[in-house]
């Protein structure tokens, strides 16, 4: 009996030591992540001022009429987009931009996307000259109507979003390509705004990301967002503050140190020859938007090519955010799966290697430790908390203080994003919208972030189970 007590005590001591060690590890982990968050936010705020000047003192209307802005091929992959494809294409055809082409790629949709496109725009099959830079699934036909001289339609076998983008690249004529989701709406001058950033450094700028905003609850007329409102429903509202924090608080800062790891698939512009040089978009898995940017970093750094992945927050693309738990969870699990795949495929080969500079020493460690592995630290942290409580290692006061420190150190970052929004953009004119943004920035910490961790974890499980389905996706009309 005494022996048993002895071993039990030994085991308890070991567990206490282990939990103590874990506690120190978790504390340093939290300190480092907070430090990086604060660093990136400080950079974002610092760069807001020159950004604001760039926005304020450039006459977009005049630039959009200039023959010196670079021509762009807009690639619009479409899969089962029969509800929105007409409105989206019409809005793209009406952009204020001097020279561009719209290439809609039907990725073997099961609905009437192809039929609607062909009938609506009276398209006829053509045999254009198509390069074979990147291999794709079989193309069934190329369509065009001289009455819409800058619209092309590709009908191809299903191969995924990346494959559709690659098919679009093969047909495209211009040196810049822009990827746009078929469920998104570009603002009229969004391309001109991105072109301005590109024109200021055309040699080095290999990619420019646009800002994605949430269109739910806004009024859309003739493919244009007329009345901007904060989303009424809970899930889009939470995503709105989350997007604002990620795009304004994060991407401005990452871009300023050339460490941006993702250009949103919803809207971004790329140098076509660089995309072809890295083999085009990687198919078969979600996260192709992150993958292409990682490959561009890698290609340029390995070949000593001066480059910059820029972010243009005033070039806005409005997108529909999932408004139900089911669709949102499916999207986030997909993102989690894509992120893990990218880190396994590319990230671990580049991390902490001097040749990859900021990208290898800051972006990737941040992404792997604090994004990819985040669910595991969170879940182990929760288990450790239970352990501290059971072993009387921490009192309630300590737990509350640390939870409050965590809350306020994260909430200040949300406030930073709101500061940038008000300072440089002020897109939501009503005071009530600011109240709602504040409210949802608080609510994010009570359930939404935790469930986000769970979705990412489930995404990882899907990855290891080789479940590569797209999951739930429901399209609705704009103005809903």
């Amino acid at each position: 009996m005494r022996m048993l007590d002895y071993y039990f005590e030994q085991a308890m001591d070991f567990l206490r030591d282990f939990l103590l060690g874990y506690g120190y590890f978790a504390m340093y982990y939290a300190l480092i992540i907070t430090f990086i968050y604060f660093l990136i936010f400080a950079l974002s705020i610092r760069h807001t001022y020159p950004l604001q000047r760039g926005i304020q003192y450039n006459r977009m209307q005049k630039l959009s009429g200039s023959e010196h802005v670079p021509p762009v091929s807009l690639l619009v992959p479409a899969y089962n987009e029969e509800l929105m494809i007409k409105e989206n294409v019409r809005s793209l055809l009406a952009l204020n931009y001097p020279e561009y082409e719209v290439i809609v790629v039907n990725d073997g949709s099961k609905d009437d996307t192809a039929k609607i496109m062909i009938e609506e725009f009276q398209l006829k099959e053509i045999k254009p000259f198509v390069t074979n830079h990147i291999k794709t699934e079989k193309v069934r036909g190329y369509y065009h109507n001289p009455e819409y001289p800058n619209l092309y339609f590709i009908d191809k076998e299903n191969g995924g979003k990346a494959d559709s983008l690659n098919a679009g690249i093969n047909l495209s004529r211009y040196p810049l390509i822009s990827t746009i989701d078929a469920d998104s709406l570009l603002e009229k001058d969004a391309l001109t705004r991105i072109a301005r950033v590109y024109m200021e450094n055309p040699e080095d700028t290999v990619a420019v990301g646009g800002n994605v905003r949430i269109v739910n609850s806004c009024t859309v007329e003739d493919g244009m967002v007329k009345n901007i409102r904060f989303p009424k429903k809970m899930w889009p509202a939470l995503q709105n503050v989350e997007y604002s924090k990620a795009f304004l608080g994060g991407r401005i800062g990452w871009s300023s140190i050339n460490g941006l790891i993702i250009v949103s698939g919803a809207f971004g512009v790329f140098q076509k020859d660089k995309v072809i040089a890295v083999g085009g978009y990687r198919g078969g898995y979600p996260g192709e938007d992150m993958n292409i940017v990682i490959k561009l970093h890698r290609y340029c750094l390995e070949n000593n090519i001066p480059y910059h992945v820029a972010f243009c927050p005033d070039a806005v693309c409005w997108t529909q955010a999932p408004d139900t738990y089911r669709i949102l969870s499916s999207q986030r699990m997909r993102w989690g799966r894509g992120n893990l795949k990218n880190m396994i495929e590319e990230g671990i080969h580049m991390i902490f290697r001097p040749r990859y500079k900021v990208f290898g020493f800051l972006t990737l460690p941040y992404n792997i430790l604090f994004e990819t592995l985040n669910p595991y630290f969170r879940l182990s942290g929760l288990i450790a908390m239970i352990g501290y409580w059971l072993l009387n290692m921490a009192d309630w006061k300590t737990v509350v203080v640390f939870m409050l420190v965590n809350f306020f150190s994260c909430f200040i970052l949300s406030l930073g994003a709101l500061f940038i929004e008000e300072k440089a953009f002020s897109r939501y004119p009503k005071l009530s919208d600011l109240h709602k943004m504040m409210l949802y920035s608080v609510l994010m910490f009570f359930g939404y972030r935790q469930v986000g961790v769970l979705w990412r974890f489930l995404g990882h499980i899907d990855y290891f189970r080789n479940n590569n389905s797209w999951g739930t996706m429901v399209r609705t009309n704009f103005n809903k």
Partner: protein
Amino acid sequence: MYINIEVAIKFLYVLIILNLVFAVVVYAMKFKSMKRTRMERRFEVKIKDYFTYVLVNIEGKEPPHAPPFSLNRVEQEVMQERLNDMIENFTGTPRENCMELCQRLGLVQYHLDRLNKGSYSVKIDAAYHLGCMRVQEAVPALLKLLQTHKRNSSLFVIARSIAKCARDEQDVKDMVEILLRHNKGFYDLLVDMIKEADIDHGALFAEFIQRKSNEFIQIGLCGLKDYTQPTVASAVYRLIDSPDRTIQYKAVEIYLKSVHFIPRNVVQKLLQHPMDEVRVLTVQAIADLKLVAYIDVMRDALLDESKRVSDASARGLLLLGEEGIAKLCGVTAEVRGSEQGGYLQMLIEEEIKSLSMQLHDLDQLTRYNSLAYHYEKTLGKNKRIYRVV
């Protein structure tokens, strides 16, 4: 576990205070922006009649008078923006009258003072407004500001202002030289800015392409890309042999756009160029200029190693009348069975199909007949795929 809870609590207090300060700042900015919007709206109503007066008298010999009431800072800024827009949109006398009105309102002196004495952000703001108002006296100070400015968006704001305010070509040249120290290939943006200057742009670009520096040549070529006078062709001709590939391509592009005839030796030189883009441009130019004399050259280009050149040549031959069509069908028959032959045959069949739908047009009917005839004759089909209507 040893945790200094007192330190953590102090840190928490600091965080709470910082959060509160940030929240107050965000709300203060919102209130300020809302107040400004309200003031702007009120002023828009108040100034409506005055702007009607300005628009009515904008083309008069005398510039309009300043408004008969004093303006506060927000109102002055709104007024400035409206006048900036008018100056940008008007030309000639209306623009000059608006510029004079800015002078009478004291806006010119106000911004000149800000440019000389203000903080960095005030200087950039002043530079922008002085540029909009085309204030020539501001050029020396703007050039000085540009000299020491690092490369970011504001650099181009100042440069554009210099171009707008430029007194002569020399001011623009000075601006270009300063910007080229940061050279990152922003030639198109530079040209776009130069075109805002009130000078003879064509002469300046033509001068630039005579220089030895590749940067100036690139700017000159970007600027000349829309000029189609034959004099431009002779100016860019020597650059076709430039060691720089980009310059070569741009020079060929401008040359082919601005000539009415291409000598045979030039055609041959361009069709032997290693860049397939240059060869494509050449065969396209031959087709556009309807240079039937070069059908033999186009025939050779059909068998070019580059598919793009072959494709452009085939499409070009289709536009060169009966003889061109006969050559295209003849070559297609010769290479029948190869990948290239298959592609050319598909192209001809597509054209026949497309022309068969436009038979109401006499020209298209003639082309259709000619193409169908040569297709059947050379490619040996037993029956016509589309009947002549």
